[in-house]
Each structure stands twice: as C-alpha cells, then as structure tokens.
C-alpha cells in the first residue's frame, strides 16, 4: 500500500517535497473516504437524527411547524416506566429466544443432513431457501389463513386426526404468541441452515475419518469435532438471528398487529405505533433507541469475543 500511494505521489505531483508529503498523507484518507461517507450518511446521520428527535417532545404539530420543546431524557423515562413496557420487553424476549432456539436447532439438524450430500440435496436446499426469500407479508398472510378458526388449515388437519377444534389461534391471547413464534421459526430455519451448512463445508473430512478409525462414535465426533470447529459460525448465526428476530416487525404486524389485547405487542410494534400511528415522534425515537440497546450490547460482546478467538488462533 505504501509503494502504491507514493507512486501516485511521484507521477502526479512535481511540487515541493512538503506538498508531496501532504498529498501522500491525504491519499490514505481519500481511500477510506467513500466508506466513511457512506457510514456518515446512512449510519451516523440517522442514528444522530433519531437521538436528536428522542430528546425533544416532538408531535405532528411541532414537527411541521417547528418549536418542539427540549425534554432531555424524559421520553426515555416515560417509555420505560409506561405500564406496557415490561410486558412488551418480556414478549419480545420470549419471541426472540423461543424463535431462535428452534430455528437454530432445526437449521443445524437440516444442515447436517444436507451435508451428507445425497442426490438432489442441492435442489432441496434451494427449495428450502424459497421460504427465506418470500416477502414476510406473504408468509404472514399464509399463516394467518392456516390459524383461522372456522376455515383454517390447522383446525382442518386436527379434524383429520379426530380432534374437533374451532379454536381461532390468533384471536386467543393464550395461543397467539406461540402461534406467531411457530410461524417465525418456519421463516427463520433456512437462514440458520445456510449459515451452518456453509460452516460444515469448511471442516476437513479427514478429521472425521481419523476419528472414525480411532473408534469415535457419531455422537463423540459431533461433540468433539463438529461443535468446536463450528463455534465461530454458531455464534455468528445466533447473533445475527437474535438481532434479526429481536427487531422483527412485519410478520407480527401482519398476523396480529400486536393483539389480541397486546398479547403479541413486541417492542418494534410499540415503536411503530408511537411514531407512525400516534405521530409522537419524540417518544417513538426514544423507544427505537431502547430497542437498539440489547442487540447493541450483544454485538459488542460478540466483537470482543471474536477478536479474542482471532488472537488465539
């Protein structure tokens, strides 16, 4: 890199050495400038704008006319101390952990299965990806229809095995959250599967062959080769899955819009309602920042961890 910058310096500048040095120094920044500009425009600016909104009492009126009063952290205090916050946070965590556990476990199992490389496995894998590619609105509408009471697919299937049910799964507060989680598990499996599958491909087969010759059982090979070799991939898949699920919005919004009676009211829906239904933009921005905190903390832990791993290698 050093020689590259100095070549440019020599060929394009015949000025004094000081000028050349300045140019040489600034080329470095020119190289990182596009990335920085991108970050500034699409990451820092929205983050700062949201933070800025969150410390003012912004509503529809003063958003248009100006003059929103500064309220410091009051919007944050209001949001966290509102009676629905604790239940929304709990619902979000149940939704996230519940979805992710099964997405990951089933995705892992399927990845191991596809890793056997049987005929047509490539085609089947591609078909599985369709679920991931489907727009969330489409998958959510499908599940809505399956969970319906009088004409739902689920009740019809239950009828086939002799269970008469008219349960409207999304209209009952006790079944709505599990129902939404199951739909989300289905949506998230292919992503976990692809991450794990890609990881499995990097493990040299000689390791397994050697272990098999030494008499290691399949179970032993899994715990002593697959899991340790896969740890970075597993962590990445879990982290990405967590962040993605924690802020999931569209699938829940289409299926229940947070209902019935707030039973599936995850934080992302609370944020959306504050900002775009009630037009309480200050409160909505504060809520959005609160929603950011948990994935952010996890990401930082992950970064530290992966850096330590890297150094260890």
């Amino acid at each position: 890199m050093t020689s590259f910058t100095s070549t440019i310096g020599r060929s394009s500048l015949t000025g004094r050495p000081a000028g050349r040095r300045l140019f040489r120094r600034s080329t470095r920044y020119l190289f990182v400038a596009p990335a920085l500009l991108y970050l500034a425009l699409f990451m820092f600016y929205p983050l700062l704008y949201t933070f800025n909104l969150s410390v003012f009492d912004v509503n529809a009126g003063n958003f248009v006319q100006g003059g929103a009063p500064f309220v410091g952290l009051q919007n944050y205090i209001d949001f966290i101390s509102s009676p629905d916050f604790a239940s929304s946070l709990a619902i979000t965590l149940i939704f996230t952990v519940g979805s992710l556990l099964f997405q990951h476990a089933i995705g892992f199992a399927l990845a191991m299965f596809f890793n056997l490389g049987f005929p047509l496995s490539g085609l089947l894998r591609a078909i599985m990806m369709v679920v991931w590619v489907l727009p969330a609105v489409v998958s959510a509408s499908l599940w809505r229809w399956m969970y319906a009471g009088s004409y739902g697919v689920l009740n019809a299937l239950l009828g086939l095995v002799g269970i008469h049910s008219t349960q409207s799964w999304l209209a009952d507060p006790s079944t709505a959250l599990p129902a939404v989680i199951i739909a989300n598990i289905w949506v998230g499996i292919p992503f976990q599967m692809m991450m794990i599958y890609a990881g499995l491909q990097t493990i040299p087969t000689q390791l397994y062959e050697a272990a098999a010759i030494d008499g290691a059982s399949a179970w032993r090979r899994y715990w002593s080769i697959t899991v340790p070799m896969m740890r970075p991939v597993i962590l990445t898949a879990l982290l990405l899955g967590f962040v993605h699920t924690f802020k999931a919005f569209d699938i829940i919004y289409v299926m229940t819009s947070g209902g019935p009676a707030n039973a599936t009211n995850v934080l992302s829906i609370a944020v959306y309602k504050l900002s775009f239904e009630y037009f309480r933009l200050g409160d909505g921005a504060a809520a959005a920042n609160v929603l950011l905190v948990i994935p952010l903390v996890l990401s930082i832990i992950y970064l530290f961890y992966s850096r330590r791993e890297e150094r260890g290698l």
Partner: protein
Amino acid sequence: MSASRRGRMRSRIAALAVAAITVAGLAACAPGGSGAPKDAAQETSGPVKLTWWDYYQPGTTSSDELDAQLKEYQKEHPNVTIDRQYIAYDDLKKTLLQSAGADSLPDVVIINSPDQQQFAETGIAADLTKQLKAWGQLDKYPKGLIQSAMYDGKYFGLPITANCLALFYDKKALADAGLKPPTTWDELQSDAKALTTKDRYGFAYSAINNQQAVFQWLPTLWQSGGDLTKVNSANSVRALQFWSDLMKDGSVSKEALNWDQTGVEQEFAQGRAAMMINGPWQIPTIAKEAPNLDYGVALLPKDKEEASALGGENYMVIKGAHQDTGWDVVKWLQNKQRLEAMAKAGGSLPVRTDLKPFDDSAAIATFTDQLQVARPRAYGANYAEMADAVVIAMQSTLTGSSSAQDALDKAATTIKPLLPKQ
C-alpha cells in the same frame, strides 16, 4: 504493513469518524420545522399545477368518477392542471406527515374524516372558515358531518362521502324464527341467541385489533349514555359488558377478534351470521357476492339513546401558494350533480340535505334515517391513540382476560390526558 503503522492508521480513522460525528452533532437542533407553512401567496392568473392525493384505488368506480370530474374541471379551467396521485390508505397519514417535514406536500387531499382534526392540529390544513362563510351553504350539511371537518371552532374541509352503521338482517332467518328486527338491546340479545344454530351465529360485529373495532362499538357506547370522555363510567362499562355477553352467549363468534368490517360482511353474505353491524358501502359488495341473499337494513337497536357512528371522507386543502385554487376545485366539486354521482360510485349517503339518495331502496332510506343520529369521532388530534387503548380494553374483555370495568379503567388512564383540553 507493520502493527504500529496499522495502529496509527486505525486511530486516524477513528479520529475522522469522531470528526464526522461532531459535524453532524453541531447540525443537531430542534427537529422539524422545515415544512412551516408559508403565508398564502396571492394567486397569479398564470398556469397552476395542483397536486392531488387520495386513496381511491385506481379502477374502482369512485376513482373513475373522480377522474372524470377532475378532467371536466380542467377543461373549464385551462390554466389549471391537476396531478392526481393514489396513495394507499394505510400509508396516507404517514406519507403526509413525512412530506410535511420535507416540504413536499400536495395541494388537496381526501382523508378519512376522523383524521381531519389531527391534520388541522399540525397546521398543514388551510383554514377555510372565511371562504365557507362567504360561500353561504354551510347550513346544507348535517351537523355531525360538518363537525368532523372542524377543529378549534374553525372549518378545515368539506365532506365528500358519508356513511354510518346500521343493522343488517337476513330476512329468511328472522322469518323462520318468527322474529322482527330487534329495536332494543334486550331484543338484540334474545334474538341473536334464538338465531344461533349449529352452523350459523346470530350476530356479527368486528372486534379486530384496529380502529375499525372502535368504529363498530362506538354506537353501542353512545346508546348506553357513555362516551370516550368517560370511558370507565357505569354506562360505558355496561356497553362493553353487553358486547362481551353476546360473545359469551355464543351468539357472536370468537373470531370477531379477527374480522375487520369486510370480514363481518363476508360472514353475513355467506350465511354464517344472521345479523351484523355494517355500513352502506357493503351493499354493492353483498349484491356481488351473494346476489340471492334476501336481507333488510334496520336502525341500530337503542338503549338510553339512539346513536350510530359517522364515517366518510373529507376534502382537506393544504396551506400554501395554491390554496385558493385548491378551494376553488373543492367548491366546484360540491355541486349537486357531482356529489350525487360520487355517492352513487362509492355507495355513500347524501352529504348534503339537498341531495337525493343514490338509489331509492329501502336500505338506503334506512341508512339516511340512521345518519340523522350518527355522531362523528371528533375527539381531537389524539383519536388514533385513544382508539388503540379502547381496542385493547375491548379485546381484553371479550377474551375474558380482564373484566369490563378493569379494562376500561386502564383505558381511561390512557385516554384522559389525550382528550382535547376544553
């Protein structure tokens, strides 16, 4: 590249990032305000290009009729071009607000009437009080309708369509059971029970998780003598308990929590409900989906009072350089023939007392009667949030996870600070 060099590089990048953040931070100040409405400039007689937003889906009868009328206006006024744009209903409010922030608002908008006050509060709507008074036709509009366009004692729009809720009933089902349409809550409850069979519910309403459920329940609330301003009063609690009892009796399907008003209409049209609460816009739909269904429309059963909920759309003219032209178009569209044509296209009730109903069916006549006791949802700028609190109370009670009193007590604490200050 050596480690120390890499370290230096990294710290320089960090310094740059900090600089970028600081610059952005310096720019931070009280948000919004860029769309502060300009003073209405005097219109010159040169060409004017009006931007027009509405949520009439292209290809529908309403959309075609409006297109035809706007074309006619442009023919009569060659200096005016109208650029009509379709914005989906779900996006309209959001898009309007974002455009207000970005200073790219349209000039005329058709909005759902309960949203008018919210936009009047934002200051983007032009105050038409002077123009309307000079026009001198305000007395031609039913009181509830014109109230929906008012905020703070000023006029911000005019109605284009109007509707309200009434009781639809399956004539054959009622005749078979030897019943007449119910006129009181008690009759509604006993009739609904009597009409419920193995494959049919006696009654249907919408209790879905959005404002439609509140629109459906408000008539019952008002009939009881209750109101959103006293949502946990004894009467209001009684109104919610009544709906809850209808479901507990088995006269209303638990699936009502999933039905929007179209869902309710489908249950009725397919014979899975003998009676329903719904509006006149469903009449053309039922005619298409169930042409053989013999049904009637009756006034909603009353309790302490008669009441129905008023719906419809209003015109809103946006403050700015084109507001005079905008008002001129709206005024031009409020012509008897044009309004009657719009009403026919959209299944709307007459928005003015001097209009003829779009057809002479008994159903429309009943709806027009019902309109006289229909009330607007004129609860100020925070109605959307109040309605959400009510939906949660409704659903908690209907699913049995809370008593009507507890649910409405909770709603009342949310609603109280949101009510317009008197």
